């Protein structure tokens, strides 16, 4: 509900300011595939219309990048509108069985770090045994496009990485300035384990004790963005309980998608009297790690990392959390590092949670646009603070044969503190 007590879809005044920032409208120019168009559909469902195949296709095409949220002068809570509309779709049974099956396959894999790790081990085996070559040569990946897509997205990992576990925590170097708890993320933990390790080293070097509560599952962000509310609430409750039990009063997140969700739990639990206040209180303590570090005086010395670094602003950091300056400020403080902006930097890269697995066409178009803009900067390095974005942008850069090395800002900061060169993998 909005401040006026009405359903947020009714707050839209149809001014159209959301259109030019919407990636699907920018690519297609078709208004049902814009925030304004989707809000109309949400209103129709609110008035009792049953979801149709057309409605579902327009709701599905939304990347959830939330660029419209920042652009809306009327303050419409589009995030609440789209999530609720999607949960109506999921409850309606309008999806074809093939579509529903594919979605449920995705949701039985990605939000489960344990299963994701098993999949990563299989992917690793598949790649090193030559089976990948065989499936590609025989055209099997074309017959199973979903597997091919996963393969194209997943980075090359070593065995040590696919089997690494969440680090236990770290003690402050020197006198402690405080105690914080870290959220490990799912996709990040499995595909980019280096990010959590770097986060611990940086926080420790800056004087913080860090706990990484054991048994962390998914935070529920992927599910809530797709309208799977009950599943999301169950996951979120479990994670909140684990983190609260750590006794820390600051919960740090280094994956933007997780952070934007965990900062807004009041909405997810708005109809749950037992959890509503607890959720709001929890969200108040959540911070992105760059937001946290940029607000405190640096303690560890930064060593030079010479070179041009393009900054990719993940939608769930820039739009959903409004965090623009902190990661940039942290990077600019590294001697020798020249930070450059990517043209159309506010536009989504097409990754968007599970979007690049289910909306291939739009995702590819946006990915190509992003890659071209990254390449136009001429920077050999890319800073990206969200694992989904990094996978997507690297995939497209790899396909284009561009040699751009990507890393999370916290990994770059870590390398600077340790006096190492630019970290990360070449795409």
């Amino acid at each position: 509900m909005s401040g006026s007590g009405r359903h947020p879809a009714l707050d839209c005044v149809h001014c159209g300011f959301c259109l030019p920032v919407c990636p699907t409208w920018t690519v297609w120019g078709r208004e049902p595939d814009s925030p304004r168009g989707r809000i109309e559909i949400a209103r129709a469902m609110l008035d009792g219309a049953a979801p149709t195949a057309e409605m579902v296709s327009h709701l599905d095409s939304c990347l959830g990048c939330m660029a419209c949220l920042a652009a809306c002068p009327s303050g419409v809570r589009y995030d609440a509108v789209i999530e609720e509309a999607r949960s109506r779709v999921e409850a309606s049974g309008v999806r074809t069985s093939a579509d529903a099956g594919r979605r449920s396959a995705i949701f039985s894999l990605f939000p489960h770090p344990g299963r994701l790790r098993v999949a990563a081990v299989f992917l690793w085996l598949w790649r090193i045994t030559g089976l990948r070559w065989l499936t590609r040569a025989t055209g099997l990946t074309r017959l199973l496009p979903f597997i091919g897509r996963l393969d194209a997205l997943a980075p090359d990992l070593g065995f040590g990485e696919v089997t690494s576990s969440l680090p236990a925590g770290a003690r402050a170097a020197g006198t402690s300035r405080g105690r914080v708890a870290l959220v490990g993320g799912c996709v990040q933990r499995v595909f980019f384990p280096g990010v959590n390790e770097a986060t611990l080293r940086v926080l420790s070097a800056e004087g913080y004790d860090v706990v990484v509560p054991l048994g962390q599952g998914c935070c529920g962000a992927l599910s809530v963005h797709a309208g799977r509310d009950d599943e999301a609430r169950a996951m979120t409750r479990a994670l909140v309980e684990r983190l609260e039990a750590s006794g820390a009063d600051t919960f740090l997140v280094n994956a933007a998608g997780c952070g934007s969700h965990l900062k807004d739990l009041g909405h997810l639990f708005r109809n749950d009297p037992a959890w509503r206040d607890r959720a709001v209180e929890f969200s108040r303590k959540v911070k992105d790690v760059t937001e946290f570090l940029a607000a405190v005086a640096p303690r560890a010395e930064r060593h030079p990392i010479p070179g041009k670094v393009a900054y990719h602003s993940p939608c769930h950091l820039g739009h959903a959390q409004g965090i623009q300056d902190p990661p940039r400020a942290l990077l600019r403080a590294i001697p020798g590092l020249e930070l450059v902006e990517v043209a159309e930097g506010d536009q989504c890269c097409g990754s968007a949670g599970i979007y690049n697995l289910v909306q291939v066409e739009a995702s590819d178009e946006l990915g190509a646009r992003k890659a071209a803009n990254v390449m136009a900067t001429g920077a050999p390095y890319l800073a990206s603070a969200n694992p989904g974005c990094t996978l997507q942008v690297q995939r497209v850069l790899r396909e284009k044969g561009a040699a751009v090395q990507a890393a999370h800002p916290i990994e770059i900061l870590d390398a600077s503190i340790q006096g190492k060169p630019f970290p990360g993998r070449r795409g």
Partner: protein
Amino acid sequence: MSGPASLSDLAGRMAAVVGARNCFSAGPDLLTYECDGLTHGRTRPDLVVLPGSTAEVVEVVRLARASGRPIVPRGSGTGLSGGARPVPGCVVVALSRMRRILEVNLEDGWVRVEPGVLNLDVTKHVSAAGHYYAPDPSSQSICSIGGNVAENSGGAHCLKYGFTVNHVLGARLVLHDGKVVDIGGPALDAPGHDLLAALVGSEGMLGIVTEVTLRLLRKPEATRTFFATFPSTDEGGEAVSRIIAAGILPAAIEMMDRLAIEAAKAATGLDWPDVGAALLMDADGPAAEVEDLSARAVKIAREVGALELRLPRNEAERQLMWKGRKSAFAAVGRISPNYLVEDGTIPRSEIAPVLREIESMARDNGLRVANVFHAGDGNLHPLVLYDARNGGEEERAENLGGDILRMCVRRGGSITGEHGVGAEKAAYMADMYGESDLETMQWVRAAFDPEGAMNPGKVFPKLRLCGEKPGPGGLEHPAVKSGEVQRW
């Protein structure tokens, strides 16, 4: 050509021209096209078609006309007078896929674009080279050039630089029968009738514009902005009159009243104070001239009783001040569940008394009116706030809006400054023009489109019915109910 028999047959033929994904006929796909930026009076079209080229527009127009359906052109759908509102049984031709910048000639200062190109994108495209496109409607981040041409759009900086009509050099137009005509061009002052002046502001009634050649300007050497607050709109209005009377021509001079300031603050987080009125002024040109002009304007503002004067410390702060002003319309959604955006002009010297009269009219009707406007042009934008959930309030708001416009005419102004007449203000045209004036305009329209198939039901009042209001029983005349006639 023989006409397609049924709607589904027509949809199939349209899809063959523009691609199935660019032709909408299913209910849920049509919802967002039922209105533009003016949301009441929603009407469902038969079809929405999104052509990708002039050739496709020609085919689409021919097919629609062969089926006997009227055509409603649409740009980005941000208009505030219902100019792109569908009529029953029509085909909406939306130009938002035609957004290529076709040719740029910086040396001679022009650019040729498709109609779906966004206003601000023209400037973005040429700004690195030090150029820009001057007309800047508050919706410039989203409104399309085609829509600007249809409405002869203005904007804050039109005080110094003129409206769209002063910046269009040429246009390609698809007529009702599919014929393609080119009007004007990059060379200045084409011989023959000045059809461009007739086309710009014709609200989609003469045809569909598929290419526009626009004049580009060099960015001024310097721009100085200041924000001044006043106890009330009396002092604000006085400041505007005296600044212009002193021979200063600001690039823009905008005024907001207390409610508009409150809304802009809510939308942007600006730390503007709660005051009765605020002015936002830009002076631009050669640095020396700008320094002198803005210093004199600041002095005048102080003399008439400005409470506070703020100068932006950097470009980002300046942009934020303008963002506050430019998002003010939609921001009013934060302080009122519903509102009407009115648009009228008055002589500049009448600003203070007119605002007082609006305030008293609002009070008599038990409603609030926020004012945000281009003060230098005397172009008012009264925003009538209401809550549609309260029975009768919407109608009272509409009546108040109408009364304000009529008052503007009485004071020597007009019923629209820049938003167009559209569907909403057609009924007020008779307050401005006599019958022979309107008839002459109809002759021009008929010369382009004898059947009145392009954007019907806009601008011109429908058949006249006795102007009396419905009786105490509130019963409306059946012909009014059916939409065949209207009271004016």
